[in-house]
């Protein structure tokens, strides 16, 4: 037994010895090809955005259009002038800020009693909140637009924001964070006569900053990128549309200018990309946390 078991093992180690560099090289080649697939559209768009369109190169002159012959920032200024991009950018900022603030506030408030108190109905409420993650939501956007119409919020930024701020993800995330705060800290604060709101704002929130940040960043990225819901709510108010909606409208315009569109796309992408690169670890770990 020991003989037969040992020889394949040694054989395996021998093969590994000469195969390893080759395998590693192959791994890098494969990964690089996939990286090109993942990033190519961005690289090309950036190249187009930086190309001086007066030089007369077509964006499809391939592969020359990947390396702009004459680099300029003119397209970025141009897209602001011709497409009122500043307005769309402002709308994105307003919608995203309101949504992030609302989500953090509502999630933290709701999560606190769910994490720290026993009260009748707690299990039921928590269950119902979690159930929203799997409930079939195919028809909710129809009824929600009707509700917004009744409330007079259709075509407003509040109409985009309000229906999205209470979500199971945020409440669940904050509850998990609050549960982990040591009970002794809370007891001490209560003995000192602190009210529950003080405990929440002075103890719980500072101690769960990483979770709050994570939730804030996730919400910021999704809201900034969201297309369908703002498009639907603001279909009657195009001047209130965020960049995600406006960029596509630009593309449909008669005087469709790919250089300006590319510049607009880069402007829209930039905040999310910067946030992602800065908080990359948090992002990827947050996702990994979802399966653990």
């Amino acid at each position: 037994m020991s003989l037969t078991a040992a020889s394949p093992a040694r054989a395996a180690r021998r093969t590994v010895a000469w195969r390893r560099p080759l395998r590693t090289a192959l791994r890098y080649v494969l990964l690089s090809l996939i990286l090109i697939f993942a990033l190519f559209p961005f690289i090309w768009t950036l190249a187009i955005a930086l190309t001086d369109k007066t030089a007369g190169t077509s964006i499809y002159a391939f592969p020359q259009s990947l390396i702009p012959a004459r680099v300029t920032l003119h397209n970025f200024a141009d897209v602001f002038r011709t497409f009122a991009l500043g307005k769309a950018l402002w709308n994105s900022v307003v919608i995203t800020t309101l949504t992030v603030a609302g989500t953090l506030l509502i999630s933290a408030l709701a999560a606190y009693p769910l994490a720290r108190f026993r009260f009748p109905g707690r299990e039921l409420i928590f269950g119902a909140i979690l159930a929203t993650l799997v409930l079939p939501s195919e028809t909710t956007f129809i009824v929600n637009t009707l509700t917004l119409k009744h409330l007079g919020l259709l075509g407003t930024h509040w109409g985009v924001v309000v229906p999205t701020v209470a979500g199971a993800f945020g409440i669940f995330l904050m509850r998990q964070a609050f549960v982990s705060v040591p009970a002794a800290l809370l007891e001490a604060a209560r003995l000192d006569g602190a009210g529950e709101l003080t405990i929440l704002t002075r103890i719980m929130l500072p101690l769960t900053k990483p979770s709050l940040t994570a939730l804030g960043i996730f919400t910021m990225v999704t809201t900034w990128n969201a297309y369908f819901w703002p498009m639907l709510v603001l279909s009657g108010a195009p001047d209130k549309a965020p960049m995600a909606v406006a960029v596509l409208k630009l593309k449909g315009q008669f005087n469709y200018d790919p250089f300006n569109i590319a510049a607009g796309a880069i402007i829209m992408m930039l905040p999310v990309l910067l946030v992602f690169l800065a908080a990359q670890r948090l992002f990827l770990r947050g996702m990994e946390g979802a399966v653990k």
Partner: protein
Amino acid sequence: MRVPWRTTLLSYTFLAPALVLLGVFTFYPLLYGAYLGFTEYNGARFGQGLPPRWVGTANFEKLFADPLFLTSLQNSVKYLLVVPALQLAALAVAVLVNKQLPGMAIFRAGFYVPVVTSISLAAVMWEWVFNREGTLNWLLRNLGLTTPEAQFGWLNSEVWAFWAVMLVTFWRGFGYYMVLYLAGLQNIPEELEEAAVLDGASAWQRFWKITVPLMRPTILLCTLLSTIAALRVLEEVLVLTNGGPLNSTYTALMYVFSKAFQGFDFDYGLASAAGLVVAAVALALSYLNFKLFNRPEEEEA
């Protein structure tokens, strides 16, 4: 244990904003949407103040007599082909980056960038790729696979638009599932792999005998998520082809959306009924996924 009434009151005060919003914008629309599926109710009439009228299963009869709905349902089922492609690719890529080698962090982050890209930007960028004069045709031409005469716009092709849209879904999704698989892979004890290497197991054997069985919960979660996402695909279709050409990319949720908001009659009743059918299929597929991937341990070979 007696709960002090103050605690209860306080709890509900803190919960109130979330409960009101969830009630109004999640639970109420779920129930009312289901009800609307059994009514005749359209937006034009809604403007004139006519309430929804109960019509029983009339909407469902209309749906299954509508060739467009049948096409869209068929396309949605066909769209599920993206699931195995996505999962196999994501798992393979996760295995590739799950090694302590220089530069792996760059690859992981790079593959995730499409995930944090807005569908609007994806639409702008990919239309240039799929254009008649775009990159895809250039690539195929230079690989000698097509001739300059055979160039066409992929999104305008009745045959290819569907696959082009699916490619965008794939592009936006594989980084997401890769990260989930990566987490699963890092939970596998290293000793297990080492022992297998000493026993002379090949990389391929290790993958199938160790990695895959231990990753079963992650695989279940990922297939479940991507099955439901594929069935509910709407944004890609909406921004890239709007269901065309010749309805070849019309998916079930595209049907729901267009019946409710794109036509002249704003047929909320029919759209809600179609939404219910999609929801039923989604539930059935989730159940099937569980049955397929959550086999009890003793059934394993």
